[in-house]
C-alpha cells in the first residue's frame, strides 16, 4: 500500500510537471495583461523541436535548448501580434494552435517519415544520492528526471520575480492599470513583451519535458490539451503562483489515477478517468473554490491616449 502511494505521488509529480512549468509561465504574461491561448501550440512546437534537436545532436540537453528557442520564437510573434498589432488574443491563440498542430505533424512526417516513433535520446533520471534510497520518500520524490528538480527551481524563481522584484511590480502594474503604469513611466509594451517571452521559455521547458524527459519520442498532437489544462490551472489558481501549482498537482493526480486505479484492481471506465482532469478544470473555472478576479486589463491591448 505504501509502495503504491509512493508510485502514485511520483507519477503525479511527473504528470503535473509540464502543467506546472507552462502554467507558471503563463501566469507571468496574464499578470501583465496578455492571455496566450497559444500555450498549447507553444508546448507542442517545443515538444517537436526538442525531440528533433535531441535526435539530431544526440544530446538531450541541446534538445531542451532547441525546444525553448522554438517556443520563445513563437511567443515573440504572439507578443508582436498581441502588443504591437493589438490583435484579438483569443483569435491569435486559436490560429497558433491550429498552425502548430499542422506544422509539427507536417514536419514530423517529412523529417521522420518512416522512422515514426523512433526513440530519441532522453534526459536521465536523477536519483538524488542519499535521498533516493529513503523508504517511501525516495520513490515518491527523488527518482525523477533532472528537469523535475530544475523545474521546481524555475517555478520558485518565477514566484520570487513576480512578488519580490521591481520587474514583478511592473508586470502587475501593466496588467492591472496600464494607463497609470504608463504615466508612472513604466514601459507598458516592453514589460508585456518580456512577460510573453517568459511564458514562451517556460512553455518550451514544458514541451521539452513531455517529449525529451517523459515520453522519449514525438507523436502527433502529443500535448493533447495539456496547454488548455495549464490555462485552466491559472484561473483555478486565482492568478497566484502557489495556488496555480496546487491546481496543476490536482490535475496531475487526476491523470495519474488512470494508471493507478487499474493497477490496484479498481475498475472505473477509462473514459471517465481520462475525462477527470477536464471535469475538475471545468469545476475549477466555474469558481467552485470561490471566485477570484483576473488582472483588470487581461486581453485588453494598450494604446496610449485612447
Amino acid at each position, binding site marked *: 500500500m505504501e509502495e503504491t502511494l509512493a508510485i502514485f505521488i511520483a507519477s503525479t509529480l511527473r504528470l503535473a510537471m509540464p502543467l506546472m512549468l507552462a502554467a507558471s509561465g503563463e501566469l507571468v504574461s496574464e499578470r501583465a495583461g496578455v492571455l496566450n491561448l497559444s500555450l498549447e501550440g507553444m508546448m507542442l512546437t517545443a515538444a517537436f523541436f526538442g525531440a528533433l534537436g535531441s535526435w539530431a545532436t544526440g544530446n538531450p540537453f541541446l534538445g531542451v535548448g532547441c525546444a525553448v528557442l522554438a517556443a520563445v520564437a513563437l511567443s515573440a510573434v504572439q507578443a508582436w501580434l498581441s502588443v504591437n498589432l493589438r490583435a484579438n488574443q483569443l483569435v491569435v491563440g486559436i*490560429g497558433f494552435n491550429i498552425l502548430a498542430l499542422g506544422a509539427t505533424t507536417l514536419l514530423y512526417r517529412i523529417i521522420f517519415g518512416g522512422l515514426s516513433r523512433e526513440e530519441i535520446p532522453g534526459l536521465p533520471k536523477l536519483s538524488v544520492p542519499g535521498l533516493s534510497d529513503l523508504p517511501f520518500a525516495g520513490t515518491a520524490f527523488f527518482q525523477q528526471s533532472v528537469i523535475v528538480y530544475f523545474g521546481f527551481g524555475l517555478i520558485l524563481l518565477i514566484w520570487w520575480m513576480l512578488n519580490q522584484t521591481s520587474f514583478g511590480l511592473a508586470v502587475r502594474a501593466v496588467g492591472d492599470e496600464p494607463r497609470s503604469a504608463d504615466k508612472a513611466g513604466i514601459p507598458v509594451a516592453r514589460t508585456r513583451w518580456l512577460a510573453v517571452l517568459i511564458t514562451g521559455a517556460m512553455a518550451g521547458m514544458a514541451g521539452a519535458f513531455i517529449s525529451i524527459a517523459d515520453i522519449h519520442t514525438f507523436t502527433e498532437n502529443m500535448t493533447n490539451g495539456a496547454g488548455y489544462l495549464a490555462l485552466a490551472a491559472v484561473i483555478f489558481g486565482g492568478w497566484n503562483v502557489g495556488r496555480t501549482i496546487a491546481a496543476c498537482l490536482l490535475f496531475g493526480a487526476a491523470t495519474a489515477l488512470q494508471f493507478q486505479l487499474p493497477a490496484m484492481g479498481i475498475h472505473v471506465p*477509462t473514459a471517465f478517468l481520462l475525462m477527470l482532469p477536464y471535469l475538475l478544470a471545468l469545476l475549477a473555472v466555474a469558481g467552485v473554490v470561490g471566485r477570484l478576479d483576473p488582472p483588470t486589463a487581461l486581453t485588453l491591448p494598450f494604446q496610449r491616449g485612447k
Partner: protein
Amino acid sequence: MTVLALKMPDRRRLMALSIPFAAVVGSMAIGLLLIAISGKSVPDAIEAFIDGAFGTAFAVGASINRAVALALIGLGFILAARANLTNVGGEGQIAVGGIAATAFALWQPVADLPLGLAVIVPLLAGTLAGAVWGGIAGVMKVRFGTNEVISTLLLGFVALLMVYWCVQSTALLRQPQTSSSTLPESLPIPDATKLPGLTGDPESPLHIGLVLCLLLALATAVVLQRSTFGLRLRAIGLNELAARRAGMPGSLLLVVALGIAGGFGGLTGAIMLQGEQFYLKAGFSSGYGFDGLVVGLLSRGSTLGVLAGALFFGFLRSGGISMEIMAGVPAALTLVIQGLIVIAVAGSVILVEKLEAEQR
C-alpha cells in the same frame, strides 16, 4: 498606403474586404512552397488536390457535404459572436449531437416512425443535445463569470471523451461484442433514419443537409439583420451594462446565444452521422469544429461570408485528403494554411480599422 489616399471610399472598403482574401492566397502560396520544399512534386500535388475536390461526382458531393457541416458551425459562431461571445466548442457540440442522434436513430420505435419523422427526430435530438452543451457554457458565463472560450474548450474535451466512452461500452452505444475483433463502434443506423440523397445519382453522397443549411443560413441572416432578437444580441455585445439598463434580459440572451450556437453544432453532428457516417466511432467529429470556427472567424459576421468560407474550406479539406493519399503530401498542410490565414486576418485588424476609419 499612398494609393489608398485617393478619394475612393468604395475602393478602400474593397481593400478592407480583400484582406481575408489576400491572407488566403498568401497562405496557399506558402502551402505550395512547403510542398516544393518537402521534395514532392507540386504539379502532382495540385492534380491530386483538384481530383479529390472536384474530380468526380463523389468528390464534389463529399466536398459540399463537408462545406455544409462547416457552414452550420460557422453560422452558430457568428450568431453568438454578435453578442460578443466566442464559441470555441464546436467540436464538442458536434460530438454530443452525434451521440444523441445515434442513440435515437438506433431506438427501434424512432426508426419505425412515419412521414420522415424517423429522420427528423434524431436530427432534433442532436440539435437539442448540442444546445444543452452550448447552454452550459452560457450558464457558467452568467452565473460564475467563466470566460466562454475556456469553458467551451474544456466542455469539448469532455464531449470527445464521452463519444469514446459510448463506443467502448456495450451498455451504452457499442455494438454487441460477438468476437474479440468487434470494433469499438456503434451499430449502423437503420436506413429509415438516414438523410435522403439530393441528386438521385447513387455515386453522389450529396444529401438534403445542403437544403437545410441554406434555409438556416437565410434564417440566420434575417434574424441577425431584421429581428429584435438580433438587435438585442448586438446591443449586449456592444455594451452589456447599457443593454441591461435598457431593460434587456442580459443573462438570458447570453445563455440563449450560446445555446443556439451549440444547437447548430449538435445539428451538424446529427447531419454528419445520418448523412454520411451512419455509425458512431471515436473521433468522428475530427477537425470539423475547428474548421467551422475558422470559417466563422473569417466571415466577419456575414452570412454570405460563412457560406463562401465553408465552401472554400470544404473543398480545401477534401483536396488535402486526396493529396495525402495520391501525392504523399501530409493533409496536415491544410491545417498550416488555416492557421496562417487565421493569424494573418487577426493581425490585420488594425489595418482594416484604419481603412474603415479613413473612409468615414
